[in-house]
């Protein structure tokens, strides 16, 4: 659908959230807990944190939980009963207060989970998810969404985008049918568009490179020593993958309790040594340099090639979370500036 513009006041925005909560809907929003801001299910509008740049973890768990039960089984003698994933039990969920880069992170996940074989479990959670994002009026050093084709007011991936416009007002953009359905339930809270350009209210993030250039560069430097240099300080902790909105690599493990149990899908990371280790002891990605190269190539070359989407929304979480201070944007900048003779 074509995006529709409206205005909504701060107080009506609060009322919209309160109305969702009062109607018993599951709402997930940024909540401050200890020193972190995390997406959590809220019961009251007052729990929502709004003075943060970015949550520590992305919102991907709403469609791709950290651990989820794919099926359950029960053994009785030699017989096994297998119970399918309970599709009907996936609740409708409203993600409130995500950033455009959180919403943009769902495009790579949608691509991976629908590459030929459709992952019905992921798709069910996704279908049940309505995303109400808030444009960024601030950013920090790790942010690089504009270099990834996004931006602080980018609408892609959101169902509704709210841009704070000062003086207690906000620009509300209705982007998808899901956003429209939400709007239609609470039309009285919205007013006619002000006609103001939202750009003036957004933070400015310089675009440093573009994804097509990165793709060409990382492919040209596949055999370069740069991967070893950049990953020398990487300890393979996998934090970058866990905080990333676009990382979808997973493990499948059984969880057994006596005669019954579950088959689980769990987040995994290409940064782990065990990730590709064969039973024989052979490991195709045996060094951290190869694992770092896989991480960068997968996001910026293989995914664009195979499923036509870049595996990064420029949220910068990996750089904020890295205990060894590896900054993805900085590393990409180094590669962008490399010349052929320095391979």
């Amino acid at each position, binding site marked *: 659908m074509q995006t529709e513009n409206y205005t909504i006041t701060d107080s009506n925005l609060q009322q919209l959230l309160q109305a969702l909560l009062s109607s018993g809907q599951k709402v997930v929003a940024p909540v401050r807990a200890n020193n972190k801001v995390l997406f959590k299910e809220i019961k009251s509008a007052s729990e929502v944190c709004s003075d943060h740049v970015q949550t520590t973890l992305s919102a991907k768990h709403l469609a791709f939980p950290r651990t989820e039960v*794919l099926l359950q089984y029960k053994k009785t003698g030699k017989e096994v009963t297998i119970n399918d994933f309970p599709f009907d039990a996936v609740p409708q969920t409203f993600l409130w207060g995500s950033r455009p880069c959180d919403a943009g992170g769902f495009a790579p996940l949608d691509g991976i989970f629908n590459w030929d074989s459709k992952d019905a479990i992921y798709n069910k959670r996704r279908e049940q998810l309505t995303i109400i994002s808030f444009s960024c009026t601030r950013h920090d050093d790790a942010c690089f969404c504009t270099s990834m084709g996004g931006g602080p007011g980018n609408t892609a991936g959101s169902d509704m985008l709210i841009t704070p416009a000062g003086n207690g007002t906000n620009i509300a953009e209705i982007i998808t049918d899901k956003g429209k359905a939400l709007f239609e339930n609470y039309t009285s809270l919205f007013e006619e568009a002000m006609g103001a350009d939202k750009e003036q209210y957004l933070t400015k993030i310089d675009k440093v490179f573009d994804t097509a250039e990165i793709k060409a560069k990382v492919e040209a430097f596949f055999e370069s020593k740069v991967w070893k240099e950049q990953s020398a300080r990487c300890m393979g902790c996998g934090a970058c993958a866990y905080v990333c909105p676009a990382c*979808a690599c997973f493990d499948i493990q059984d969880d057994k309790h006596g005669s019954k149990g579950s088959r689980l*899908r769990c987040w995994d990371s290409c940064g782990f040594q065990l*990730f590709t280790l064969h039973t*024989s002891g052979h490991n195709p990605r045996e060094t951290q340099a190869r694992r770092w190269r896989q991480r960068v*190539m*997968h996001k910026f*070359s*293989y995914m664009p090639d195979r499923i036509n989407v870049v595996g990064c929304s420029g949220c910068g979480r990996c750089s904020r979370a890295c205990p060894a201070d590896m900054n993805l944007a900085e590393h990409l900048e180094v590669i962008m500036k490399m010349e052929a003779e320095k391979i």
Partner: protein
Amino acid sequence: MCNSNIYMPYPMRVEKVTNEAPGVKTFRLNFINAEDAQQFTFKAGQFGEYSVFGTGESTFCIASSPTREGYIECTFRQSGKVTSALTNCEEGDTIGFRGPYGNIFPLDEWKGKNLLFIAGGIALPPMRCVIWNALDRRSDFKDVTIIYGARSVNDLVYKHELEEWKNRDDVKLVVTVDPGGETPDWKGEVGFVPSVVEKTAPVAANTIAIVCGPPVMIKYTFPVLEKLGFTDDTIYTTLENRMKCGFGKCGRCNVGKVYVCKDGPVFTYKQLKELPDEY
């Protein structure tokens, strides 16, 4: 299909267990649900995820031929967690299977050609599928040669089938064991697969070579074949890499941008030459 859980395995009955070699077993698996048996089809070269409920899933090929309908077979060596649990399964037990996944050996394109099968050790199973598939439509192909090697006589798998192939007029079978692996009454060849290939392979003209084996065998066999005149697009192999999903999502098996689970596991030597050295 769009609304079904792609991680749901077919429940399979372990119909028959055959001890092939030390630590190596073959399972014949029957579909427990008749409708699963009816709708299931696969082609030579494809693989699946076999699971022991409570232990997990493991990836290996379907070792039986698609021409033998109603069941599938798998052959595995006890080596990790899941293959150990499989080893402990008995006839009548229920295990899981999901698949088939991956591409195929293009048997239809090979009509009218000679087929040369070269296998080493526990890599005969993925090739056995193609061998029986070809032998069950024998008139489609000209000469069929099978060269199979293992570390020792004891390590040879499918001993009954080797005997069957040996006794057929329309198959040339060469079996070899590594030096030191022979028994006093051993009548086959003694020597490593690449050198036995050099000695016994048929002419390269109009011949397709299918090679499966441990990496070291592959590494030394491909150059021998090229020396014998095989071009790199007439040499086929099947790759394995660690996998979890089998359909391009879990992120493990890719070699560069090529996914072993989706683009493979069957590749020509020509395709392998274009891959980065990361498998």
